[in-house]
């Protein structure tokens, strides 16, 4: 098991190194003056010089890569335009994203697993079809579209739902109340996907010999699900959750914009609009690290659930 984790970790580090390389090299590849593109056409010459410096374009590509590696190793990405350390700014928005993601997971995971299992158990009935089709329709919709709909049809008519997701300094319950609308939007986007994966896994597990044996031994449906079906049926769900966690952290750029929530997504779009490349770079890397850790954790959990999976790592 330890060997598995180490091997998996090394693979992720290689991936991360390549990403770092891509992010560092990107401005060098752009035709024309990348600083002008980042800073916008009307930027003053001083601002242009500053952006060129920020992009590291005055140095050779080797120096730039060296600088990137150093800043990752020391967690020092310089300062923002208004003088705050980039690391602190990123940390604050990561914490905000963490709150939103945790609450979303607490709502989404149980609901979608339950939904998927019910759909599988009631396969080919109207219940199954409703869960699958409604989920499918919603999961296709971009998150900000769902967010705007929720804003109009829940946020405005009902005092209970808050249109601003951020409630700094408020008690935990009030904060949760403020986060409800974005969480529902995330639920709409992810429920169908997760439920579908769970449904497929459950159908496979329900078809398996051991499940039939368990039913024939006279176990109740509840017991069969608990001790025989769940462990096997949920492996794909765990794998998907691992990959989606990274997306939850950094992919909700537009949704955070709708509810003016200062998470990583908003950080990144603000960095873009303010032409703050170091902030942008650090934010993107933070998302990538979280994604890496999430998929790693998912793989370890799956390996724990299914010993056979330990053998096939790397053969992706």
């Amino acid at each position: 098991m330890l060997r598995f984790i180490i091997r998996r970790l090394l693979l992720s580090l290689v991936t991360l190194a390549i990403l770092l390389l891509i992010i560092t090299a990107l401005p060098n590849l752009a035709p024309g003056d990348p600083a002008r593109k980042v800073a916008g056409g009307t930027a003053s010459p001083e601002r242009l010089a500053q952006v060129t410096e920020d992009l590291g374009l005055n140095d050779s590509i080797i120096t730039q890569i060296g600088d990137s590696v150093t800043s990752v190793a020391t967690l020092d990405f310089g300062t923002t335009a208004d003088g705050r350390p980039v690391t602190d700014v990123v940390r604050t928005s990561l914490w905000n994203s963490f709150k939103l993601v945790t609450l979303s997971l607490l709502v989404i995971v149980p609901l979608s697993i339950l939904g998927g299992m019910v759909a599988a158990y009631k396969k080919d009935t109207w219940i199954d079809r409703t869960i699958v089709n409604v989920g499918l329709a919603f999961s296709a919709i971009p998150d900000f579209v769902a967010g705007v709909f929720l804003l109009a049809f829940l946020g405005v008519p009902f005092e209970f739902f808050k249109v601003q997701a951020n409630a700094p300094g408020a008690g935990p319950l009030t904060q949760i109340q403020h986060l409800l609308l974005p969480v529902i939007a995330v639920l709409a986007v992810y429920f169908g996907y997760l439920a579908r994966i769970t449904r497929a896994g459950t159908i496979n597990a329900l078809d398996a010999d051991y499940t039939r044996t368990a039913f024939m031994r006279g176990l109740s449906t509840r017991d069969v699900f608990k001790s025989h079906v769940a462990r096997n049926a949920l492996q794909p769900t765990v794998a998907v959750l691992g990959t989606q966690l990274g997306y939850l952290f950094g992919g909700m750029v537009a949704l955070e914009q709708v509810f003016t929530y200062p998470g990583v997504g908003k950080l990144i779009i603000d960095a873009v609009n303010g032409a703050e490349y170091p902030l942008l770079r650090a934010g993107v890397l933070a998302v990538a690290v979280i994604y890496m850790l999430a998929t790693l954790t998912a793989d370890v959990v799956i390996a724990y659930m299914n010993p056979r999976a330990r053998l096939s790592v790397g053969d992706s």
Partner: protein
Amino acid sequence: MSDSAKPTPPSANDPSASTTPTSPAASAQAPPTSNEGKASRNQIRREQRRVLFRSPAFIVGCLIVGFWILAAVFPSLLTTFGEKDFVPAGSNSEPFGDSWLGTDSSGWDVYTRVIYGARPILIVAPIATAAAIVVGTLLGLVMGYYRGLVDEILSRILEALLSIPVILMAILVVVTFGNSRPVIIGTIGLLFVPAITRTIRSAAIAEADLDYVTSAKMRGESGFFIVTREILPNVVGLVVVELTVRLGYAIFTYATLAFLGQTGGNFTDADWGVDVASNFNQIVNDRWWPSIWPAAAIASLVIGVNLIADSIDKALKS
């Protein structure tokens, strides 16, 4: 990136390259054994097409997508106004009153904006998807058939591209290369390559182990012939599914980029994502229609494309 599309790895004629263990592959399609020849494959195709054309989901999807294509190509057939005409109803008029879907704060007709807004998204998304499919399928086939060192290196690079959310990578690329329309198309196309490559690659790995590939090799066919004439026809169903699924994502991605103001151009031009972004602040003032209608348009187009994707997938599995 694009010159890596046609590498000839050193292992080209190394038979051991195809004996590497298969990974959990290609589930979307049960490949017909091509030993039975072209005739039976055509018959299966015909059967699948029949199932497809009778599927209600497919018909509804086509109607929705067809409507928006009509709007994108001939907007003036569907509305009498121009996208920036000031209409008689004035500004901020409520829907179903003086103007069908209401007017926004600039005095533009929301229905007209929605009709004209179909154009940018329906130019960018299909072109980007087509480019991604061509590159992704080629890469996937070559990597899956030849395996070896090049495959290993490319796999790592593609994985790195997939390791942050597509929308973040898109923002990053668009920011550095400028937000002109060709850049947007290229970015969305490039970002969809990894996922397509991964799917096609694992299908190609599974195919490469089958008897018909072995016998083609023994006949002394070239690698190019085997990949394009033997393997490709057997994964073409998968390619079609990928095409429709990715088209949905491309619409998704373009709409999000537009909403975030990263698509450049003139922000007064009708564009669903841009229109949602510039009007959703008024929802709290009870003026929901200038943003909800374009949002509904995005939703309907994505759902339409997904209905088509889903029914094609089902027909191929039937």
